[in-house]
């Protein structure tokens, strides 16, 4: 199925697209009449404030959430009419809240990514083994293969999860906030890895919290607000001071990133509220995380790092 991209004049094809979908949780509508196309071979970043429907859209695109109306199409077919197993061979997802079972080894966990390729009499083929090794290699986790997940650092763990999805050998890769809970060095490392995978031919779609990261690494940005898509296109073309003000309610100036030349958002000092609390200095607790102010959300360096969810068990 072909889609013309409004921001560029070239003709772009999309294997994955949503047409006029309405998404709801327990009858509560989160997004209505949404249409979006993921350009093939793009690194698409979905951005927007909390509760703008980013993750919900990602769930719908990955066949986890069935739209109330409208359809998601994969390779021109309605995704809900395809078998889950067939979808899983084309599209891989890394959800945000991945929790490893107790005492599982890295190799075992990455092997689980082979599930859609396996069966009752095809439990561990040579292809399975090769795919797992190449996924470990791509994420530079081969050296960790025999270790237990609970011995690893947050950054290592996230790379292992990514390896698991890579072992699935899908040409589309969807990730929900893959950099959350990682420190800045690991964030950049992971994004560079995603960019590398994208350069290798995979289509990558990631929900990203950090606008500057999205601008630097993504080739296509989808900006959401209140369950609607307000802008999409190349970061250099759509990220403007007006858009940031509109989507995040944050006054800012945009300057070229001194390293990559991509747009870089520098928040303007917000009026100091009467309580005297400056957004960037606030140390939000986990519980108050949704109330993180726009300023700290935008600035990856200063937003406080919250440790990854504790291991189950």
């Amino acid at each position, binding site marked *: 199925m072909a889609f013309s991209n409004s921001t560029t004049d070239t003709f772009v094809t999309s294997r994955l697209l949503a047409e006029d979908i309405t998404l709801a949780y327990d009858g509560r509508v989160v997004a209505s009449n949404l249409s979006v196309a993921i350009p093939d071979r793009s690194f698409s970043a979905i951005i927007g404030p909390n509760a703008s429907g980013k993750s919900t859209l990602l769930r719908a695109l990955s066949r*986890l959430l069935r739209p109330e109306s409208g359809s998601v199409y994969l390779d021109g077919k309605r995704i809900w009419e395809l078998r889950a197993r067939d979808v899983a061979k084309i599209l891989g997802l890394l959800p945000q809240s991945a929790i490893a079972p107790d005492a599982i*080894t890295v190799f075992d966990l990455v092997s689980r990514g082979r599930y859609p390729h396996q069966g009752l009499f095809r439990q561990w083929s040579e292809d399975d083994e090769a795919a797992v090794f190449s996924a470990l290699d791509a994420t530079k986790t081969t050296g960790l293969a025999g270790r237990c997940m609970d011995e690893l650092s947050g950054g290592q763990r996230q790379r292992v999860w990514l390896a698991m999805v890579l072992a699935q050998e899908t040409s589309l890769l969807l990730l929900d906030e893959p950099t959350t809970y990682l420190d800045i060095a690991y964030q950049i490392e992971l994004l560079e890895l995603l960019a590398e995978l994208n350069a290798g031919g995979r289509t990558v779609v990631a929900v990203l919290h950090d606008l500057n990261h999205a601008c630097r690494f993504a080739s296509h940005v989808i900006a959401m607000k209140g369950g609607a898509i307000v802008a999409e296109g190349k970061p250099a073309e759509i990220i403007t001071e007006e858009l940031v003000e509109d989507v995040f309610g944050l006054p800012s100036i945009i300057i070229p990133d001194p390293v990559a030349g991509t747009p870089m958002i520098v928040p303007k000092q917000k009026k100091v509220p009467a309580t005297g609390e400056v957004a960037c200095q606030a140390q939000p607790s986990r519980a108050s995380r949704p109330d993180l102010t726009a300023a700290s959300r935008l600035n990856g360096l200063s937003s406080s790092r919250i440790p990854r969810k504790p291991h189950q068990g």
Partner: protein
Amino acid sequence: MSWHSISLRPVPFSPGSYVLRIGRWSLRFDARLIGHTLLLLAMALTVGILSLKSGARPFTFAEITEAIFIDAPRRLHLPIIEWRMPRVVLALLAGSSLGMAGAIFQSVSRNSLASPDILGFSTGAATGALFVILLGTGGYYERAGAALLGGGMTAAVTYMLAWKGGIQGVRLVLVGIGISSMLTSLNAWLILKTDLRLAIQAAVWQVGSLNTVNWRQVQHLGSALSFIVPCTFLLGRAMRQLEIGEDLARSQGLRSEYVRASLLASGIALTAATTAIVGPIAFVALSAPQLALRFLRLPGLRLAPSAAMGALLLVSGDWFAQHLFAPRLIPVGIVTICIGGAYLVWLLAGEKRRKQS
């Protein structure tokens, strides 16, 4: 397909794990897991043989071998083969069945407290079976059917009440405990309302007892399990895949609603088939999977070792039930409640320690 290419290789970075490839078919198995399961079974069998040996009239190994393998005289055959053996075999079968059921419930709910006894499914199955017992009619299959109905209905109600945009472990357990208590009082009321003879029979059965056992009952449970257990093992792979989380498993092509429903159905069937004969024996289903998990250092709950551990627990519990206050017999359910209670305290204390650290 070429049948010439047969190979047996270890799976990398997975000690004890091997893959057998025949053409494009491949079977993966964990030799360590199989070994551990066999070890547990061997221990259970050893306790079983000790059980055959000891009693009001102790026997020697020679006498037992004679009774089992040779056409023994009646003075050996009757006590060993007709009286003691069905009890041991039933303990082994019921224990494995309960251990397996526990592994299923704990794996599906990702909660180490979720088991048919805690969630009230056993009590519900008991309510169903009690109806049949107290009517004074109906054999095993009526009883098992009613137990299945009772357990299934309890499960449905528990899930409905615990549902809040998904199932949360703690909520499920709390609702289960509540429902379980209500059903326990219902069961007590049912017993109070009937005539003394049936009531005594039902009351003994209700604690979970192996004191009145014969080969017929072993046969009934055996035939029920010979159907349910293979079906459950077929779901094992999907159960392991669910360990990595609902969303991930689904995105990898697992039909999670279907898998979960099938797993719960076999868990309830295992519980019902067992409860209908031995009554609601507590804590075996709760503790066996966790003990297997901890002692064997497994990455997740596994069906086979949980079943073997359940067999070991119940057959040992029954040995204590027979000999702790000999010559007075106590129901094995009392023993498992005591063992299980201690285990539960240990488990909760462990959770608390972990939360604090």
